């Protein structure tokens, strides 16, 4: 139906889904221009949306694409945030070009260690093990006061220092654009991954592990690499968050954050690349509106939202948006 045009193109491209650039151009233009006119509160909401959008997309690599139900993804977000913060504040490593790679490396090592433990089991046990590992980090962060500043969180993390006075990220608007650029780069990398043989192999593993083995794929290795890669992207979002918020707290490592990001993925749709980012946008937006209007009711609203999302939009909101958009475009332009 939708692919009727691409079937007529010559061989080498036949088979590719006709991925139009138009939605990306529009989205990018909106995200670039909109902040210029936004009140400062909503600018910060938009910044949060991009940070959590990236975080949710990183979880989607293992949760949506590989089929690994991880309930410990906050561990990598928080770990990278803490390491960056400690590097800058405690050890005086000012340069972003050193502190950020340290954070990402920390997230990668954490994922590499957790992966060895968690990937020994599958299904709901994987969920429980990842959950437990996240909680472990959370309790360490709470108790190890001398390093982490304990329960109330590690504070005093400044804006990133890129080493160029031109690129001073002190103002919220400048930081927003910085986050936008990082988000765009990560989005591009993840979309390449998604289309690649490696990314396709992850989908194959989600669908049927035994067949993938029979076809010559080392399934464990794929899961392990995917887990680490997802952890690194989560680390990037954690670093962005730590700089944005100026702090990072034990709760970011544990269940609360891991469950929230999982809800974003489920609500937005694990089947698509950008669905989870959409889920993140919805949850962050509603969370900030709710905190203005009915501050104490947020958990209840989140619960209701989730039930509606799961019951009303099977497979997430993302795929429904695509279908609606296709219907609108195809009825407007060409046949069927």
């Amino acid at each position: 139906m939708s692919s009727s045009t691409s079937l007529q193109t010559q061989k080498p491209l036949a088979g590719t889904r006709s991925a139009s650039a138009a939605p990306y151009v529009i989205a990018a233009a909106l995200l670039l221009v909109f902040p210029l006119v936004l009140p400062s509160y909503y600018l910060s909401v938009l910044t949060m949306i991009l940070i959590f959008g990236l975080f949710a997309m990183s979880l989607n690599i293992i949760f949506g694409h590989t089929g690994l139900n991880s309930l410990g993804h906050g561990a990598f977000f928080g770990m990278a945030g803490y390491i960056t913060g400690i590097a800058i504040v405690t050890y005086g490593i000012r340069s972003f070009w050193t502190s950020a790679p340290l954070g990402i490396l920390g997230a990668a090592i954490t994922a590499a260690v957790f992966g060895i433990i968690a990937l020994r089991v599958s299904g709901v046990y994987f969920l429980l093990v990842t959950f437990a590992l996240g909680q472990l980090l959370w309790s360490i962060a709470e108790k190890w006061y001398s390093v982490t500043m304990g329960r109330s969180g590690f504070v005093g993390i400044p804006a990133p220092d890129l080493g160029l006075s031109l690129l001073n990220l002190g103002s919220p608007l400048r930081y927003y654009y910085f986050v936008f650029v990082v988000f765009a780069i990560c989005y591009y990398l993840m979309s390449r991954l998604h289309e690649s043989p490696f990314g396709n192999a992850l989908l194959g593993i989600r669908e049927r592990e035994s067949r993938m083995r029979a076809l010559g794929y080392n399934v464990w290795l794929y899961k392990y690499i995917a887990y680490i890669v997802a952890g690194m992207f989560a680390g990037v979002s954690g670093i962005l968050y730590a700089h944005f918020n100026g702090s990072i707290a034990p709760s970011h490592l544990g269940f609360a954050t891991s469950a929230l990001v999982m809800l974003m993925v489920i609500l937005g749709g694990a089947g698509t690349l950008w669905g989870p980012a959409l889920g993140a946008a919805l949850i962050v937006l509603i969370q900030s509106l709710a905190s203005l209007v009915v501050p104490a009711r947020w958990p209840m609203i989140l619960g209701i939202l989730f039930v509606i999302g799961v019951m009303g939009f099977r497979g997430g909101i993302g795929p429904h948006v695509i279908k609606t958009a296709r219907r609108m475009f195809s009825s407007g332009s060409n046949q069927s």
Partner: protein
Amino acid sequence: MEAIRVERLFKSFGGVRATHDVSFRVDAGGRLVIIGPNGAGKSTLFNLLNGQLMPDSGKVFLFGEDVTHLPLHKRAHMGMARSFQLTSLFPELSVLQNMMLALHGLRRSRFNPLRATLSYGSLLDKAEELLSLLDLWSKREDQIRMISYGEQRKLEIALCLASNPRLLLLDEPSAGLTSGERTGVMEMIRNLPAHIAVIIVDHDMDLVFGLANRIIVLHYGQIIAEGTPDEIQADPKVKEVYMGIEEERRHAGAH
């Protein structure tokens, strides 16, 4: 040249003997069919050959190498491919994506995280060649669940051929097919390159006697007869076992 050899394989599940002292070999170009009543241990034996299961004792040699403790994917890289009894495709992916997964499977490109799967021109040509043979090229963008069962069964076998295997294990390739589709699958197997060794498990007697140059009869995990199709047809032990099955079938039919 020897393709696969198994020596004294034993496997039991909680006291139930699924494979009991099984030894045989298949040479390049061989067409071995394994038959036997339900529960004879055919699937277990297949899983032992393939590496999905490890034997309690005994050895498996692939092209002369001891692979008894080698995992599935490594055996695949040595040239062993396997189709599954229950169609084992990737249901949410397209026909072409299924084929591309099979084509990348034995190549280094399978680890590439940045280049688009569909940008590998030579693999795409190969996919077109294999899918055209099955009349599936025009349906390449369809998800697996949108194509017919017969088409799925053929694709099931075609995925194995994508890797140019030297040893092919086909688990009930004709299961659930109409007689027309069955002929198509038989034709496909008959046209396989002569140098490939093929081991087939199936119930369909036309297929068994039409394709085999050697037959093994399993009963309660043991080989009770081995020989050419003519020898098997004349074997009194086989008749006995299969008469029993015919009895059972009649009973089952009466229910």
